[in-house]
């Protein structure tokens, strides 16, 4: 994908406008009543707020082969069948796509390399949580609840705590998850909705019966019961989506999404972003990253997953075109994996991951974070990369400077401050 000059020009204009407007716009939204939102539903420009898309890779994705420190000898020594080489020298397992002379992206991530070169992808290394249980469930749960480790803490999700600071803001599709069940990051969010695909989000009854059934449902879901509240929100979302037809959606700018799960989910998000549904936060997930055996290097299990991810993300930003200037997409996973590969040509649960931040507001084309090194005295635990950047630092900055979160300390209580500066001022 080449940079589109028209996109860039609009991008520059947007940045100028955005820095003036974003504070005012988000503050202003709070004053809009629900009724005025209903009226505004058909006027996409009123719903053109900043959007955060969070992609969670479940299974503890192997960061060291996603952002490969090919410049470190220890890396290639510990990974005789998995480790990548850099642009020069021998590279029996394939070459990483060079980023800055030390780090390179997994070759399957080639579709997103242009975004890095255009400055719309920031890479954070040695990023993660303080969790040391190496349990998927503990680590995912802690991360989705916005905790530093699996210490006892908030039971709600971090996205939920952001959303609940101002529950009246946004439309019924303000916070969505695409998946089978609600992810923990959204647990407890007022009015969050989950669907497997936006075109499926309709009452499956003949048209003649639809409005009568809907009005019955509305009557039955009055009241304070959790289920009644959930039903009322479901109806709101349904009614809004009926105003357009997601099944007829045609991606823009020549984007052609592959038919993988993550790409299809991103296509739905693009539809919601462009259709003016008041989308603010979307939580997506990709499963299958627990590569204990036969992980593969330039090809194979992990490479296939990364290619699906990269194709999906590249199509997403192509589809959004200039609207990508109000979207930040993050990619994260619950923990990294051990430096040394195991006897099954896979990797065991480790520590120290990575994060990606894509989008117009991102100050990209750069590797962020302090690299702790991979020599034995620099590793932690049973041989893992150390974490030098708290994942919450990245998310907090995006929430605060991009989404306009009123009080980020309520989303991540107990986090020490600090910023990487990866969101443009």
């Amino acid at each position, binding site marked *: 994908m080449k940079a589109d000059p028209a996109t860039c020009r609009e991008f520059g204009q947007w940045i100028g406008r955005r820095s003036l407007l974003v504070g005012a716009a988000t503050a202003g939204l709070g004053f809009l009543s629900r009724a005025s939102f209903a009226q505004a539903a058909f006027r996409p420009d009123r719903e053109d707020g900043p959007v955060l898309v969070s992609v969670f890779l479940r299974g503890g994705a192997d960061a060291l082969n996603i952002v490969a420190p090919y410049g470190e000898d220890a890396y290639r020594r510990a990974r005789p069948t998995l480790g990548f080489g850099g642009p020069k020298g021998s590279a029996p397992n394939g070459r990483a796509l060079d980023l800055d002379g030390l780090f390179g992206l997994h070759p399957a991530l080639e579709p997103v390399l242009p975004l890095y070169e255009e400055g719309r992808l920031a890479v954070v290394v040695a990023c993660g949580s303080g969790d040391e249980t190496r349990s998927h469930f503990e680590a995912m749960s802690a991360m989705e609840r916005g905790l530093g480790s699996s210490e006892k803490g908030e039971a*709600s999700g971090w996205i939920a705590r952001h959303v609940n600071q101002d529950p009246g803001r946004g439309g019924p599709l303000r916070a969505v998850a695409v998946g089978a069940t609600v992810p923990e990051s959204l647990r407890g969010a007022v009015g969050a909705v989950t669907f497997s695909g936006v075109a499926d989000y309709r*009452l499956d009854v003949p048209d003649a019966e639809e409005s009568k*059934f809907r009005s019955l449902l509305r009557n*039955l879901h009055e*009241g304070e019961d959790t289920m009644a509240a959930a039903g009322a929100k479901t109806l709101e979302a349904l009614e809004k989506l009926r105003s357009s037809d997601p099944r007829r959606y045609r991606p823009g700018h020549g984007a052609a999404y592959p038919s993988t799960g993550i790409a299809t989910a991103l296509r739905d998000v693009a539809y919601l972003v462009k259709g003016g549904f008041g989308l603010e936060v979307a939580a997506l997930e990709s499963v299958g990253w627990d590569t204990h055996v036969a992980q593969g290097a330039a090809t194979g299990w992990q490479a296939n997953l990364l290619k699906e991810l990269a194709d999906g993300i590249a199509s997403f930003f192509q589809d959004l075109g200039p609207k990508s200037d109000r979207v930040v997409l993050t990619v994260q996973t619950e923990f990294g994996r051990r430096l040394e590969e195991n006897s099954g040509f896979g990797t065991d649960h480790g520590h120290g991951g990575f994060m990606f931040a894509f989008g117009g507001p991102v100050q990209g084309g750069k590797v962020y974070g302090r690299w702790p090194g991979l020599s034995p005295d620099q590793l932690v635990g049973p041989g893992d990369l150390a974490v030098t950047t708290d994942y919450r630092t990245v998310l907090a900055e995006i929430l605060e400077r991009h989404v306009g979160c009123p009080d980020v300390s309520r989303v991540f209580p107990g986090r020490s401050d600090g910023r990487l500066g990866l969101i443009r001022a």
Partner: protein
Amino acid sequence: MKLDRREALAALGGAGVLALAGCNPFRPKLGPGLALTATSSKDPDVRFLDRFGFGPDAVQLTQIKKAGREAWFERQLEAPTGEVPALASRLAYLEIENLSAWDLRDWPIEDVLRQIQLSAVLRATYSPFQVRERLVHFWSDHFNVYARKGLGGFRKPTDERDVVRKHALGRFGEMVSASSKSTAMLLFLDQQASTARHPNENYARELFELHTLGVDGGYSQLDVMEAARCFTGWTEERGIFAQVGSFQFDATIHDTGSKTVLGTKIPAGGGVEDGEAVVWLAVRHPSTARHLAKKLCRSYLGPITDVAPVERVARTFADSEGDIKATMRALFREYESGSVAPVVKRPFDTVVSALRALGAETDGDGPLQEHLEKMGQPLHQWPMPDGFPVAAEAWTTSLLGRWNFAAALAHGRIKGTSVPSLPDTPSQTVSAVFGGGLPEDRARAIASKLGQAPDRETCLAACLSTPEFQWR
């Protein structure tokens, strides 16, 4: 619409009503403006059948009314191994019921999955041994094996039959022991790739974290690593004459050194008994009783805030050395003494309880399973070892799938599933769906809203979609 006093209380939700019924008020906050509420003070027998089984049908409700809950429950605990003839004949054509993993080795995963999904619906809907059926689901989640991992599908029916169902009302330790040698579990958790040189920690970790002690159970990373060494060599038969799908201990890749697990020294030179020792150390650890009691209470009693019932159930579990019947009796006593909080129906519960309430005829096949998938609970396909979630928050972001199921069932649009006769009036619809489980005034209020339905089908669809029907 005017509300009388009782109805106004019911509208306030379960907090008030449960307090009136002599239970602890329960209103945990989920977020601003949202609270769980019990629907209403249901008929105690109806709610009991919702909690300990998959909801009332006409036969079970009559039985329990006649015998009383305790006698009925005792009889349920003595469920025979086999199925009653009526259910056996429905299951008769399912080959997976009798085949081994070896027999199923060349079967496409879709065929295996279809048969185990189908049998789950048929048993839950038609088995008179409802307590056992619900326990089977509890254990199937507790020892969850994702049927789609690798080529694992063909091992799954054996796991469901010989681990979960066989021991559901037996001894917990025997179940963990069977699970530890189930090739479905060993392959799901990568145990087959574990060698002395490079032990794989996955199974050992989940054994402690999920199956026995619980994550706060007091084990360390070192315990996990040592246990993983004990399990090296636990794998599946390999080679030309191997019975694929059967457990095998491969001494050549086993770590024979001495290990220390949970404070117990396991001497050098051991073989398969090293892993067996780990299983029983974990099963007998005091944290296991607490972990199991907590999970059972959460599932059957709801998110109760009082810790005393959990402690009492844990004590029974420990004192009886993991006797599941004794533990269930303790759970029964806690339920009867009023330790009850709202529990949301998971999609499977909504589907099966609707079928049972309406005396529906179902083959349990694909078209019904598709609804479960859209509602968020594709059977045997939870990809992580912790099983489908129980908490209400996991199921309340959108109710669309439930409404679409209700509409499809009522309008006769689920191929292979039908309701024999539709109730004529809104009030008949309410009594059919709720089995008389709602207080008179609440039932009247719903019936009056259903009065706007254009036809009997829509009336039934709306009634099955009510918030009240989504609670157990």
